């Protein structure tokens, strides 16, 4: 599985985001280059404040890029104007960190899934058809749609909400999924389920998953490629085995040391 065989999916050249100006200038993402290939799970690992979420929002097109350019499928992406953005968002979707704030608490769960069907052009399908699609999506994430229909988001548990987010992705079938710390607000048991589902998405739909996390252990477990980010810059990147088993950068070593180990003495001196 060499890189050359896989088609380019999302590339960046000197992508930069600057907030504010003058004395209050903050460089959140500082000239990063990346090359994400189709059908891979790419982890972006870094501590909080390193610019992971800003980068993900830029990739999503929710905030503008200050400098540099993002290439989508080999050509510069053009998302000026609502219609083009809508087209772009058919190809790239996201799961957010906090499932509790990801839902509009005034809308029923059905509306979230129905929106996805509408977005895929299924607006005029009969309800039975839509129901079948929603049930299928829910069973993909081990949920029972019949139990969820007509419920409000706050009636679900965090794990259920996050799984429903993945069901939404399953319905939309985008080329790229940006998962912004999807497991950080969820208990450890649900965590592996969610990760398994992300793997399933890659294997079944050939989806590119960009997995953003602060937990290098998780990154190792799931990724094909790892990008280590520090203060808005990528300090190291490469296949997961290379990066994590044989780290070169100081920062990566520190991150690896921060992971608690069950059968070993934990060196807290660097924490």
């Amino acid at each position, binding site marked *: 599985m060499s890189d050359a065989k896989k088609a380019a999916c999302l590339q960046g050249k000197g992508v930069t985001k600057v907030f504010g100006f003058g004395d209050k200038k903050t460089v959140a993402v500082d000239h990063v280059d990346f090359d994400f290939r189709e059908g891979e799970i790419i982890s972006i690992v870094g501590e909080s404040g390193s610019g992971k979420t800003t980068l993900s929002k830029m990739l999503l097109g*929710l905030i503008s890029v200050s400098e540099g350019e993002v290439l989508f499928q080999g050509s510069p992406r053009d998302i000026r104007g*609502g219609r083009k953005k809508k087209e772009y*968002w058919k190809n790239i979707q*996201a799961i*957010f960190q906090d499932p509790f*704030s*990801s839902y509009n608490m005034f809308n029923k769960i059905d509306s979230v899934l129905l*929106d996805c069907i509408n977005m895929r052009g299924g607006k005029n399908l009969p309800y039975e058809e839509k129901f079948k699609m929603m049930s299928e999506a829910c069973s993909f994430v081990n949920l029972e749609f019949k139990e969820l229909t007509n419920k409000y988001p706050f009636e679900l548990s965090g794990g259920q909400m996050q799984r429903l987010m993945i069901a939404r992705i399953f319905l939309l079938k985008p080329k790229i999924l940006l998962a912004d710390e999807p497991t950080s607000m969820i208990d450890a048991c649900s965590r592996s389920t969610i990760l398994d589902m992300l793997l399933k998405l890659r294997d079944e739909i050939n989806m590119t998953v960009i997995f953003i996390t602060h937990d290098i252990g998780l990154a190792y477990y799931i990724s094909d490629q790892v990008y280590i980010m520090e203060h808005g810059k990528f300090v190291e990147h490469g296949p997961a085995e290379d990066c994590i088993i044989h780290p070169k950068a100081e920062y990566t070593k520190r991150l690896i040391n921060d992971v608690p180990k069950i059968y070993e003495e934990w060196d807290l001196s660097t924490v």
Partner: protein
Amino acid sequence: MKNTLRNIFHSPKFVIGFIIFFGLLAFTLIYPFFVAADPLDMVGQGNFFKPGTYVSVQDTVDAKYYTLNIQAKSSNLGDHIEEKDKQDMRDWLLNYGEVSQEELDAADDNALVVLWLEHYDEKAKQKGLLASKKKAYVRLNKEIVKLASDADLIIAVENEDGELEESKSVDSKQYVNTKDIANQRKLVLGTDNFGRDVLTELVQATKVSLKIGLIAGTVATLIGLMLGLLSGYIGGLFDNIIIFITNLFTVIPSFVLLILITYSVGQNARGVTLIAAVIGLTSWTWTCRSVRSQVISLRNRDHVNLSKLSGHSMIRIVLTDILPYVASYVVMAFILQISSGILAEAQLSMLGLGPSTTSTATLGQMMNWATMYSAHLNGSWWAYFPVVLVITLIAFSLNLMNTGLDQVFNPQLRD
């Protein structure tokens, strides 16, 4: 939604405010079914008649009489004799009537009259009394006898020849049942300076003032909400322009602006709706500012991002993903705007800049009239006190409802 409503109606503050407010509202709505009179009809031909039941004197004479043995005359005899005459009577009885000082001291007005009738004799020896004084006593005696007597009053009517003819006599033991009197009117709060029934006027004025508050509140809330939502969500240059205009309106004292606008509009053009709209147009700024700041914090939430990613249009995002989250605040702001609208109208009308006065009364105008005709100086409390009470109750109940809602929506404030 259902839960929120239940919570709201479990807040005692809200419930009390709600009861007061809707009690007032219901009273203003139901009252016209019982009293159909025109509120601006001038009932009294004079200023500030006291509260009470008014019956027609003529109807009293014509009504059916019942003879009852109630000592009505003697019970108030003393009121009809002047203090000076009472002293004269005491002097005469002591000096010439052989009545002891103790007996006189113990006697009240009625007993004094009884003593007088028993002991006075115009032929008794009255040593040392001037002839003129003696004659004065004779005249006084006649008056007292007339007062105390049960003599009939004669009602005479002019006949065809222009002569007076006795038609009826009324004696002091005759009474009229108030139910038999055709024309009577209960003026619970008396009349105002124009001779209008204050209660009927007050009910209408409350209705008009509530209408003004409602229109002003709606206008202010709608403008503030719309500008706040748009400037908060769109941001950038648009936000800067809107916030500049808002700041401009905030620094200009809105009441001065209100006075200038209403004055320049002119007396004839000033209708209720116009005044309400003007009040609304000068008081939207705080709603706009606070809605904007809430929207700014909301627009970066994940559910808004998710909605964007689902390809929703801006209008849909604002209406479905942002508006419901600020709705509770907007409802509270709306309630406060109603209250401040009513108060602003009262202030304007007190200055004589209220709606044109020919067809409607408002709470502020009633106070203005009461002040101009110095009701507060001549003790006509009924002309202004009920108005003040109603304004206070409205503002109090609305603020109470607002505080109650605040406690439901912001649970940290709950004690």
